[in-house]
């Protein structure tokens, strides 16, 4: 098709009709929930996260009311414990992180000129997991069964079943389930940013929001898995009495603190960076100029991401670690102020150099920066160990973290809400109500949280349900309570503004006259995302590229049609965004929702110790996943290539490292390997905490023979898979099948071999932390061997069914990636449990 063809209005109308049909959302009371399009799923995601925020806000108001006056008895200590635990957990796990994922699912395809993200069904699966897990965790408070150990759930209080009830299990299992959805979102967003950019959008032309999202999604991969590892150990102790955190049997509660905060501190930046990313989009719009210092923002995002993993011990300054260790973390905590400040200066300089339009979103942005900077400065204070020892566990810390999170997450999100509402709904929000809400929230936040610095320094500990009048803290607390209700009034004004939106007139297209791609969206929103996928030559194409909007709208760029009636988008190369292929995207389906339900069953049934139904649910999950993969992935297209316009033809099938599926597997396995390294860290942590580890009476267990046999079997499976991949690519289908069968057999044999070591040496996992951690490493590795066997069987079946051929071999290439990681896991695990006792 040449440019000339698109001059024909009839052709354009026919193309639009085809696109409209292909991208039409499913209709009907039930069927509409099967949608997977990023616009719908993103909206559900945002609304659900917003609802959780309001819920957690109400919990906070109850707490503040209880604390308004000394010796109050509105709620008892037990309820108060549930309130603050749930407030923190919901705000972090059910609002801040999911909200970033939700906003990105809506914005990212628009920013990248893609029709959708590469795995729309995965987004839908993530959403349903989030909804189910979130309702399960939040709902517990209505049954007086909410977690009550604080949002960081320190053992031994929380692992001893006589001290804490079902709430701890609900927290652990419910939130583990949500962590799964976060990792799913990270996979989706990383592959989206790296592979779904429009042609020409090289790394240096990428919108900064996409840079931030890439960085944050990578952070999720390294931050969430240690918590998942911690959750595994935690539930093993609660459900099976394996003493990881029980000091009387060789465990150590500090291990939990390490694993939690290796997650917990990067988490702060995981919720901060995407919010600040919204500024990187709206500041240039309202400064009416390009953002200055583009590489400086990349420095800030990447630098913060790295440094944030060197901060976790600053939450543990009061635990008695050697001062030299505290020094390292204190130093890194001070260093992270540098990149954080850099991005704030970039925004200030851009505004300074521009012609500023004082819009409501910009008001929120500047106000939130002011609040954030105060939180940042108290952060520099508590990063100094001697000061922290005084302020630890007081209201000073409460003040610090709320300044950071309100200035760094909540208010930027409101800025984004006012900025992007016209993009999503086609209607602007009210400037009058928005500004009223801003001033209420700004004044309220300072009135609520500033006095907490003082009450904290005067000695008010956090997490107490009341305090005596003699302490003289009544006035400060009353001020905080009044402030909290002023914030709530501001949020109520925003809710009112949102509720009135459906009756407002439509705003024009691109109402802020922004320059970035997402503003191509029409007020009369078409579901197809973008009419044609443009060629990008500037960071602000709407401002800089001639006739850009018209050319996109008239389908003069790439992929303006859906001739085969399939949802499609373009895959490009990582560095320079050269077109690589066209991929077919998943259409609406029940599978994501049903899979989420089945997986939710595993976690929820385990909470109530219903192990057989949970196992059944696990089997159902596996069956669902296999069905999903079999019917929805690595489909052999009806023709090898298709034209995308301008004389270009792209393949419809790719495999290996150019394909999104390969990247998804690689990224998922990075997360998996990180979780595993959390468990290995546990082993060596115990070693440092004991005079002799393994304990002398168990030094001969599990021996060398079984672990090394299991290792040999694992490596044999790995080599067989690689050989099969290579032989298969050269056309040796029969030989490849035999090799796969061999790999399958060794992987299956690896399971009993791996478990035999601890089993035959009679290791009792409830006796001591040593047998417990050895069993855990062995079980983890054997589970991976079992999954390897399932994958190899799947590939074999695909080959036999004719769904995998030498020229269409994505399945075996993706499984080979899994096998690389499996081999690495086997080497580390079996060397640790089999060989380390010999040298320790």
């Amino acid at each position, binding site marked *: 098709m040449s440019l000339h063809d698109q001059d024909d209005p009839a052709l354009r109308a026919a193309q639009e009709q085809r696109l409209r049909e292909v991208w039409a959302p499913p209709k009907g009371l039930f069927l509409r929930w099967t949608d997977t399009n990023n616009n719908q799923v993103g909206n559900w995601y945002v609304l659900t996260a917003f609802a959780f925020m309001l819920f957690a806000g109400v919990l906070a108001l109850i707490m503040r009311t209880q604390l308004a006056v000394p010796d109050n008895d509105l709620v008892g200590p037990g309820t108060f414990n549930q309130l603050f635990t749930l407030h923190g957990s919901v705000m972090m796990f059910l609002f801040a992180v999911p909200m970033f994922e939700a906003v990105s699912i809506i914005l990212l395809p628009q920013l990248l000129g893609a029709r959708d993200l590469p795995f729309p069904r995965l987004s839908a699966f993530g959403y349903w997991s989030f909804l189910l897990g979130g309702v399960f965790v939040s709902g517990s408070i209505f049954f007086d069964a909410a977690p009550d150990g604080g949002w960081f759930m320190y053992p031994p209080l929380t692992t001893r079943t006589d001290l804490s009830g079902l709430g701890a299990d609900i927290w652990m299992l419910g939130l583990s389930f949500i962590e799964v959805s976060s990792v799913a979102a990270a996979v989706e967003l990383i592959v989206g940013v790296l592979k779904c950019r429009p042609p*020409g*959008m*090289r*790394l*240096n*032309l990428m919108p900064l929001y996409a840079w931030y999202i890439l960085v944050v999604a990578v952070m999720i991969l390294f931050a969430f898995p240690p918590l998942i590892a911690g959750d595994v150990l935690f539930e093993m102790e609660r459900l099976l009495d394996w003493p990881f955190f029980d000091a009387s049997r060789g465990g150590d509660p500090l291990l939990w603190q390490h694993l939690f905060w290796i997650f917990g501190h990067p988490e702060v930046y995981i919720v901060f960076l995407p919010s600040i990313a919204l500024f990187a989009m709206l500041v240039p719009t309202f400064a009416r100029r*390009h953002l200055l210092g*583009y*590489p*400086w923002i*990349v*420095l800030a995002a*990447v*630098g913060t991401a*790295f*440094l944030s*993993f*060197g901060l976790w011990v600053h939450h543990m300054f009061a635990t008695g*670690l*050697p*001062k*030299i*260790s*505290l*020094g*390292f*973390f*204190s*130093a*890194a905590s*001070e*260093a992270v102020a*540098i*990149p954080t400040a850099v991005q704030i200066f970039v925004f200030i300089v851009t505004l300074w150099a521009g012609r500023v339009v004082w819009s409501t979103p910009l008001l929120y942005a500047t106000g939130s920066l002011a609040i954030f900077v105060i939180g940042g400065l108290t952060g520099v204070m508590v990063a100094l160990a001697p000061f922290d020892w005084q302020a630890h566990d007081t209201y000073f810390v409460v003040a610090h973290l709320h300044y950071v999170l309100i200035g760094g997450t909540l208010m930027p999100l409101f800025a984004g809400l006012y900025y992007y509402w016209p993009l999503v709904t086609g209607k602007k929000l009210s400037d009058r109500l928005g500004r009223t809400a801003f001033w209420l929230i700004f004044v309220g936040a300072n009135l609520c949280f500033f006095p907490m610095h003082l009450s904290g320094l005067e000695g008010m500990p956090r997490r107490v349900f009341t305090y005596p009048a003699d302490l003289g803290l009544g006035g400060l607390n009353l001020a905080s309570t009044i402030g909290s209700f002023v914030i709530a009034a501001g949020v109520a004004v925003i809710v009112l503004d949102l509720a009135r939106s459906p009756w407002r007139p439509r705003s024009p297209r691109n109402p802020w006259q922004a320059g970035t791609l997402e503003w191509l969206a029409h007020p009369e929103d078409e579901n197809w995302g973008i009419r044609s996928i443009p060629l*990008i*030559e*500037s*960071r602000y194409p709407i401002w800089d590229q001639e006739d850009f909007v018209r050319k996109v709208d008239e389908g003069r760029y790439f992929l303006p049609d859906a001739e085969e009636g399939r949802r499609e988008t373009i895959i490009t190369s*990582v*560095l*320079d965004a050269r077109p690589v292929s066209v991929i077919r995207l998943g259409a609406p389906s029940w599978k994501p929702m049903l899979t989420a339900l089945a997986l939710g069953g595993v976690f929820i049934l385990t909470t109530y110790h219903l192990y057989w139904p949970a196992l059944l649910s696990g089997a159902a999950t596996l069956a669902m996943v296999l069905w999903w993969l079999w019917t929805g992935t690595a489909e052999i297209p009806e023709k090898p290539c298709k034209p995308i316009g301008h004389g270009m033809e792209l393949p419809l099938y790719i495999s290996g490292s150019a394909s999104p599926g390969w990247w998804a597997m690689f990224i998922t396995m990075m997360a998996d390997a990180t979780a595993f390294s959390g468990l290995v860290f546990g082993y060596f942590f115990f070693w*440092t*905490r004991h005079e002799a580890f393994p304990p002398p009476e168990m030094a001969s267990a599990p021996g060398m023979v079984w672990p090394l046999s299991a290792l040999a079997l694992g490596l044999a499976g790995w080599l067989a898979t690689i050989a099969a991949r290579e032989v298969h690519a050269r056309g040796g289908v029969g030989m490849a099948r035999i090799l796969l069968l061999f790999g399958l057999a060794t992987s299956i044999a690896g399971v009993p071999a791996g478990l035999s070591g601890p089993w035959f040496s009679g290791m009792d996992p409830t006796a001591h932390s040593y047998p417990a951690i050895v069993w855990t490493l062995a079980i983890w590795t054997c589970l991976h061997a079992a999954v390897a066997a399932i994958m190899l069987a799947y590939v074999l079946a695909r080959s036999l069914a004719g769904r995998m051929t030498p020229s269409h071999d994505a399945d075996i290439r993706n499984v080979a990636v899994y096998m690389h990681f499996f081999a690495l896991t086997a080497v580390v695990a079996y060397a640790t449990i089999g060989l380390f006792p010999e040298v320790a």
Partner: protein
Amino acid sequence: MSDKRRKWHERLQVTLWTLIVPPTVWAVHFLFAYLWAAVSCAKTGFFAEFPTLFTAGTVLALATISLSGWIAHRQTRLRGDPPPHERGTDIDRLRFLAKSTLLLAGLSFVGVLFTALPVVFIGDCR
């Protein structure tokens, strides 16, 4: 400019992986410092004052970061398209990645120095 006329450091491939070399060196140095102090304090109860191994590791880290920064610096000065170097060309993409790497090298250099300070000033396991 043809490949022949470019010096070796100008011909190096620049990717997302080279971008993260300096902060990765910081991370490795940090982990090394933390684990080494934690293990020697836990296992021997003592931590040699200003030990040679730590100094060598720190110097190595600083040298690696400096080298990476120097290469990046040279690459940001490659001649090609006119300023402000914000276009979708090979040379502007290269200059952008090089500039970002240079900035990260600066931050990582400071980060490594920060990590070294506790060893200088504390030096034992109290």
